[in-house]
């Protein structure tokens, strides 16, 4: 396996590495969505990210997450340059955001619709800026990358009865391999950890991390009860049971096994970058889009994503390697799937599948697009805790 570890990336001024070198055109607020869409039509090579947030939520936690996510997208190592499109009067306006971003070590061009001549003029200036930055990035070259600089996120969504048997087990074996190479692996989805506190806490690096794991799962469980009341048990649904899952712990094991079996070195908040290497656990929601954003903003350069029912979801600026849990969905959604873990059902040895996934990961790190990347299936949403005002 070591023989094929020739991986490359883009060295960033802070010593980190990107495995892509994108121009990110990022909205600060939902109001400028149309401007971002116009730029996307004019400059399809840029990663253009409109979203539904940026204002209208006053809770401190929501503002913290909003600023952390937008700043984190700007800081992301796969992003080489940024065009920030603001409105002017929003909570996450470009001035407030600039202070949170600080020195990103990359060119950032800032436009505001209220100051730059309205929507069309801003779109025109934004497209010109994006083209200029693409030209600038085209001179940068890949350099050799070592595995200890690789950071992968593990996600599952649109799960079926085989997700926890084939795809997540396969992803977990890649997670273990990555940790052995000195890389960083992160997984989240706190609601899917309910029932496994004893398992995850036992794998914690030390007592402090074990307590954090127990607390985060306890919070997730209480939140589930607060929101769903007597329906909380539906976290394991009749459909899950028809599929053969008998308890919440069994269902949760099928989810957390995608993180592999390594020692858990750190627990991080939603979107918070870890300071440790190895396996990291994120206190974030299970909803696919929100979860992917948390993992990406924590610094993951690529994601593995298992699915049994089938989802096309990718993420802006990150390769997402889609792992089908069964051969039926792999065949039914050929433009969306990258790996068929359903082959395990047909008798493929687990080691062979793992090696195939590592081989694909190496090619993806070196620039080969995943299906979601190739077809532009970006999803960008993030966690909120309060309703809008």
């Amino acid at each position: 396996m070591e023989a094929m570890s020739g991986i490359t990336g883009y060295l960033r001024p802070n010593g980190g590495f990107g495995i892509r070198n994108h121009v990110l055109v990022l909205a600060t607020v939902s109001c400028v969505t149309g401007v971002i869409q116009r730029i996307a039509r004019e400059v399809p090579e840029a990663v253009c990210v409109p979203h539904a947030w940026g204002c209208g939520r006053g809770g401190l936690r929501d503002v913290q997450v909003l600023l952390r996510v937008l700043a984190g997208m700007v800081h992301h190592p796969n992003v080489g340059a940024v065009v920030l499109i603001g409105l002017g009067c929003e909570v996450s306006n470009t001035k407030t955001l600039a202070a949170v971003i600080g020195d990103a070590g990359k060119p950032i061009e800032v436009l505001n619709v209220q100051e730059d001549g309205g929507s069309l003029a801003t779109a025109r200036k934004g497209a010109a800026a994006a083209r200029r930055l693409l030209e600038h990035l085209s001179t940068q070259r890949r350099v050799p990358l070592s595995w200890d600089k690789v950071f992968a996120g593990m996600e599952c969504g649109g799960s079926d009865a085989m997700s926890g048997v084939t795809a997540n087990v396969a992803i977990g074996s890649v997670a273990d391999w990555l940790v052995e190479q000195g890389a960083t692996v992160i997984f989240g989805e706190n609601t899917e950890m309910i029932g496994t506190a004893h398992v995850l806490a036992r794998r914690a690096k030390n007592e402090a991390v074990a307590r954090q794991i127990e607390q985060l799962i306890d919070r997730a469980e209480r939140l589930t009860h607060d929101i769903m009341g007597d329906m909380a048990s539906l976290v394991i649904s009749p459909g899950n049971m028809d599929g053969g899952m008998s308890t919440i712990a069994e269902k949760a094991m099928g989810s957390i096994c995608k993180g592999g079996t390594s020692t858990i070195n750190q627990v991080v908040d939603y979107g918070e970058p870890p300071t440790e290497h190895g396996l990291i656990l994120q206190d974030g929601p299970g909803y696919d889009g929100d979860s992917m954003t948390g993992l990406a903003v924590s610094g993951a350069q690529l994601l593995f994503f298992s699915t049994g029912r089938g989802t096309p979801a990718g993420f802006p600026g990150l390769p997402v390697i889609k792992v089908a849990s069964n051969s039926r969905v792999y065949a039914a959604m050929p433009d969306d799937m990258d790996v068929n873990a359903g082959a395990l059902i047909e008798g493929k040895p687990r080691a062979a599948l793992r090696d195939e996934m590592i081989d694909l990961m190496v090619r993806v790190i070196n620039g080969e697009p995943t299906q979601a990347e190739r077809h532009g299936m970006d999803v960008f949403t993030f966690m909120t805790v309060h309703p809008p005002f």
Partner: protein
Amino acid sequence: MKANILVIHPCDNVAVVLTALAAGETAVAAGIEGLTAVSDIPASHKIALADIAAGGAVIKYGETVAVSTRDIKKGEWVHTHNLESKRWKR
């Protein structure tokens, strides 16, 4: 013969049935010998790899995922009728 069950972890006492088994059918996987389904078991459900005494741990992923509520025989379907959650009663 082609495998029709999948053992996730070497410590497990249940395996996942890949294609529905009828009572009397042989369950096949690498390292598993002399296992016969003693009840009908739907695809993606669990088969006991060994006898599990009442109150014993049901082990999958190498971890306890449930506790049996009665004696479960090797080859039997393992599901909500013969186990319970250590946690929420589902």
